[in-house]
């Protein structure tokens, strides 16, 4: 069978490009779309605080977790932080744990200084891209996930939310255990 060399060249080029893209995608982090996480167990992770203390998400099993991805260069994130401080005080005794993950290229020291300036009363963790990828790839900041006491993702909000919306989601996450008991 006679083969047209042009066809062979085109097919070879397409295969080469797809191979290159495939390799790139394999090397790239496996990103789970955030929408698919809803109702699913929240991906566990291990991260360190700027001071070097290691924390796992699973350490907080039994608590409702507000997982907030933020950065020092993100102005809308700064709006939410004082709310989280207040809400941690208000709902902490009922079982809420706010966790902040800094998706930042600033030094741990700078992150710590920033958090202190903001009066943060909850753990701040130094983020890693692979943890962001587990949560859908954090392309927008702030990004906040609400995790039930059972460790399932209840909801997520990308961008700045209103305080009342945040509070409503916290209450839902806290109630979840009551509903399943």
């Amino acid at each position: 069978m006679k083969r047209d060399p042009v066809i062979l060249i085109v097919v070879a080029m397409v295969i080469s490009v797809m191979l290159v893209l495939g390799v790139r995608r394999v090397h790239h982090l496996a990103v789970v779309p955030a929408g698919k996480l809803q109702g699913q167990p929240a991906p566990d992770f291990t991260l360190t605080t700027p001071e070097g203390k290691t924390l796992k998400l699973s350490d907080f099993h039994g608590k409702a977790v507000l997982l907030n991805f933020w950065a020092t260069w993100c102005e809308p994130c700064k709006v939410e932080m004082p709310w989280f401080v207040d809400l941690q005080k208000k709902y902490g005794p009922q079982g809420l744990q706010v966790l902040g993950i800094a998706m930042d290229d600033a030094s741990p020291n700078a992150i710590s200084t920033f958090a202190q300036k903001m009066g943060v009363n909850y753990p701040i963790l130094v983020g890693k891209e692979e943890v962001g990828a587990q949560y859908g790839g954090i392309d927008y900041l702030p990004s906040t996930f609400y995790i039930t006491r059972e460790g399932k993702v209840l909801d997520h909000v990308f961008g700045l939310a209103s305080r009342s919306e945040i509070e409503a989601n916290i209450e839902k996450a806290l109630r979840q255990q009551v509903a399943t008991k």
Partner: protein
Amino acid sequence: MKNVLCASALLLSSALALPEDLARSKALVSMEPAGTTAIDRGKPGTVELQFRVARGFHVNSNQPKQEYLKKTELKLDAPTDIVIGRTIYPPGEDRSFPFAPTDKLSVYSGDFAIGVVVRPLHSVLPARYAIHGVLKYQACDNAACYPPKQLPVTFEVRVTRGQGRGKKNPRQSPHAHS
């Protein structure tokens, strides 16, 4: 033949255009095509680069008011014997946003231009030279911020001989003795 080409194009486009990749690679700042700027060798010339911020977004200016904010910054690599001088950034526009209505941020939005002073040394051969670099920026909209990005920047300068031939030694009289 036609079928094979169509199938190949489809395969290629589907491999290239996965939605999450498109979202991640979305350029919030673009550069207008820069023409070629003619500059005499040995003399400084200014190249103006035009950028456009996508509608609804803003980037910090080169001199943001808050220390933690990422400034917009042009980084260039010049060919040997072409000196990149001062980068002239426009002043930022002081604006407040719904997420912090009482604060003023120094930002660029819409179109903005950055000037670059380029000086080819006397030793440079008259020709066209491409200068490459990146524009570092970090964009936000009214409710969210996007991770810092780098926009590839390329422009061309045409180095000319110029009118004069540079500084010459003063003419000396062979008979001038003191």
